[in-house]
């Protein structure tokens, strides 16, 4: 109350659109948000940055009624609001694109877009009408998506776009993006940025969370930094720089994010000859020991499908795979693992994690064979391996017994990578390895890649984040519509050229 009076006394014409006062959230013993005071002005783009587990997503979930807050107040145009359920948030005009895609996989894209907001006539659904409207909506946003396909037939990145379209279609006043570009390539990201600018021009308040600082500088008016659940500062974007933000976030500076060790490439580990399968065709490439091979392409270009067929998840239809010069057949995951191939999949929720199990169990899952004596597990070894990964990757978890579901998105991603690091494979395939991972840890992961290379392993890295593959890959292959369209040695081609090849202009 007093704050409001004073604000008005100072001459602020109106209270902020949304203000948080001493907002606090605990999950059992975890204090995820510590008395955060924050104000969002009407029509601004407000970025929030912070390390993995800093509490960014938690903040969003309190604003959208996903979780109830432990204490504190939320004010909407100065008046306290409860926001105890998602419904209330939606009614206020507060919508979010969450970090994890939360849509209904069995329903069509159109049904998802209008879920909870169906168009009816005489109480009956107007299904055709909704599909048509969805089509118009998606086209208007520049998203090339089928409106009546079931959601489950889309890739995660495409699903993210559907979530975006849905959030913005609901007559919003306050729109939150929690790492929207994690699975997007440059092209889709550009469409998204255009959308954000348009919304801003229409007076919508935007909260934008990302680990990619260049996006923060490109888009935002102000930026707030969270560390360990507490707000450590808010800056006007124009008055700050990356170094300052990073030091606010992690309390130290990072000299070099892309830690690239120079390793002399060794013998060829894996070679594909005209490999074809579901979603990709006629792909020939090779990976040598000590080398990072990057795969870049737009959403749905077929990179994941290619990688998964190398790992035996969706066996290839034709073509040849040579392993250390010998032709091999990879029909199942175990075939690949026996050869020494490891895959860290792109979708942590669906493919990467046993969410209900402990962090330790998840980290140890691929290596239980090594951690047991005959059939019996060696409890000590189990604990040691899990604790080492937790320490090395700085996974923020209550203990190795904490269920994976209780971790923040970025920390979950670290498990997905970490479980393979102790596996001793010869070829690692990382599909979107740094999705949602903070800068500090990214640097750490790149350093670990270096260690793997030095130990004689080869790496295939799929990434939609061009700077990452561009900097790290010794060879960069560009995929377009399931075909390998171009290959470049490191530093041979610039961003623009690679992007043009991926789009196919």
């Amino acid at each position: 109350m007093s704050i409001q009076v004073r604000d008005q006394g100072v001459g602020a014409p109106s209270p902020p659109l949304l203000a948080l006062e001493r907002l606090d959230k605990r999950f059992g013993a975890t204090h995820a948000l510590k008395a955060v005071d924050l104000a969002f002005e009407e029509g601004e783009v407000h970025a929030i940055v912070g390390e993995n587990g800093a509490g960014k997503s938690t903040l969003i979930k309190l604003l959208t009624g996903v979780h109830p807050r432990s204490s504190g107040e939320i004010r909407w145009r100065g008046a306290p609001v409860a926001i105890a359920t998602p419904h209330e948030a939606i009614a206020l005009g507060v919508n979010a694109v969450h970090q994890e895609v939360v849509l209904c996989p069995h329903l069509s894209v159109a049904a998802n877009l209008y879920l909870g907001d169906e168009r009816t006539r005489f109480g009956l659904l107007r299904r055709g009408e909704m599909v048509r409207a969805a089509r118009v909506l998606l086209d208007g946003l520049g998203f090339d998506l089928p409106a009546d396909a079931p959601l489950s037939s889309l890739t995660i990145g495409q699903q993210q776009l559907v979530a975006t379209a849905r959030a913005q279609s609901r007559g919003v006043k306050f729109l939150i993006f929690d790492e929207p570009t994690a699975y997007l390539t440059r092209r889709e990201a550009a469409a998204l940025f255009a959308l954000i600018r348009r919304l801003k021009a229409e007076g919508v308040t935007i909260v934008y969370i990302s680990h990619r600082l260049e996006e923060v500088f490109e888009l935002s008016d102000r930026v707030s930094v969270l560390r360990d659940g507490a707000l450590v500062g808010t800056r006007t974007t124009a008055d700050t720089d990356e170094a300052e933000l990073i030091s606010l976030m992690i309390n130290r500076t990072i000299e070099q994010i892309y830690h690239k060790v120079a390793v002399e490439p060794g013998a060829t580990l894996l070679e594909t000859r005209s490999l074809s399968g579901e979603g990709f065709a006629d792909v020939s490439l090779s990976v040598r020991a000590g080398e990072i091979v990057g795969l870049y392409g737009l959403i749905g270009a077929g990179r994941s499908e290619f990688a998964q067929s190398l790992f035996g998840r969706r066996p290839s239809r034709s073509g040849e795979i040579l392993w250390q010069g010998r032709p091999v057949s990879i029909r199942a995951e175990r075939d690949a693992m026996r050869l020494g191939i490891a895959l860290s999949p792109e979708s942590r929720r669906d493919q990467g994690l046993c969410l209900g199990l402990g962090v330790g169990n998840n980290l140890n899952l691929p290596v239980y064979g090594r951690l047991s004596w005959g059939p019996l597990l060696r409890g000590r070894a189990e604990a040691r391996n899990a604790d080492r990964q937790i320490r090395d990757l700085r996974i923020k978890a209550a203990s190795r017994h904490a269920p994976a579901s209780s971790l923040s998105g970025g920390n979950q991603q670290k498990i997905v990578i970490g479980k393979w690091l102790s596996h001793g494979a010869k070829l690692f395939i990382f599909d979107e390895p740094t999705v949602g991972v903070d800068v500090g840890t990214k640097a750490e992961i790149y350093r670990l890649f270096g260690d793997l290379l030095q130990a004689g392993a080869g790496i295939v890295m799929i990434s939609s984040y061009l700077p990452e593959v561009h900097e790290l890959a010794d060879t960069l292959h560009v995929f377009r519509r399931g075909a390998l369209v171009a290959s470049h040695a490191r530093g041979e081609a610039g961003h623009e050229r690679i992007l043009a090849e991926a789009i196919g202009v």
Partner: protein
Amino acid sequence: MDEVDAAKGRRDRLALLLSLTLFLLLAAMWVALSFATGTFWSSVNIVNLLRQGAMIAVLAVGETFVIITAGIDLSVGAVTGFASMIVALLLTGSGWLTPLHLGFLSTIPGAVCATLAIGVLIGLFHGFGIVRMGLPPFIMTLATLNILRGIGLLITRGATISITNDAFTGFSLSSFGSFPFTDGSTFRVPALFWMVLLVAVPGYVFLGHTRWGRYLFAIGSNREAARLSGVNTRAITYLAYVLCSFCASFVGVLLAMRIGIGNPTQAEGWELQAIASSVIGGTSLFGAVGSVQGPIIGSFILTTINNGANLLNLNSFWQLVITGALIILIVYFDNLRRKKS
């Protein structure tokens, strides 16, 4: 635009074809039985068949609403038995429950409405246990299965209640509409089959053409996503279980009409038949996949197996084996076809 509509048309036709294929299976069984026995393809027997399958069909439709939300209701058989007892009690009175005291409730409409209302209450109780107390549906409905049987037996002390009201029991034998049959006789569509349609038609509209129907699928597909979209997932869960228990209590009324008695131990095990019918009809036990026509066809497939086995004078023990084996085969081939499409 055209492309989308074309795709939509294709998908709709596909869905229709899916249920058609099951229907073709049913038709094939009928043709085979018509050749194998001289008695199958007669208006008398087809009328019997429609009557015999009607009750499980209605149960299966109700069960399907619940299964679509990724739940399950094991109590439908118990609810059916319980409802048959309630309606019999109300119609005949017993002990202090004389028709005089009951007034309107002892008339046919009164007794039927009261029984259906009890069905709704049971459904609300299920919803309460699942939504508010957070119990798994399997356990909640298993518990009420026992409770309902126990209460029913306490009320009746194990006796069956004979219904003396002929207007009531007569209904199950009546028929509406008739047409000439191939064997020269008149085919009279039995009232019990009309009851299936009475449930199926609104059920079909509800499931496919109202937002609540769509919310059932949404909850079954991803409850959290539905909640974040502002769907009142609690209310929809209540709705699913209420509909299911409502159907079961309706079947209880039909059962009481058909056999002229009320008895809480009847309909034991029908829950499994209802679930099997539903799954044969294409419902997925993981939720978010199901229809109204599928379970009905499924239940008539099961009924045909039994009817055919009886007409062929097959050992009743063989019926068990054949039913089990056919369930495996039908669901297997149905899965295969789904994967292809």
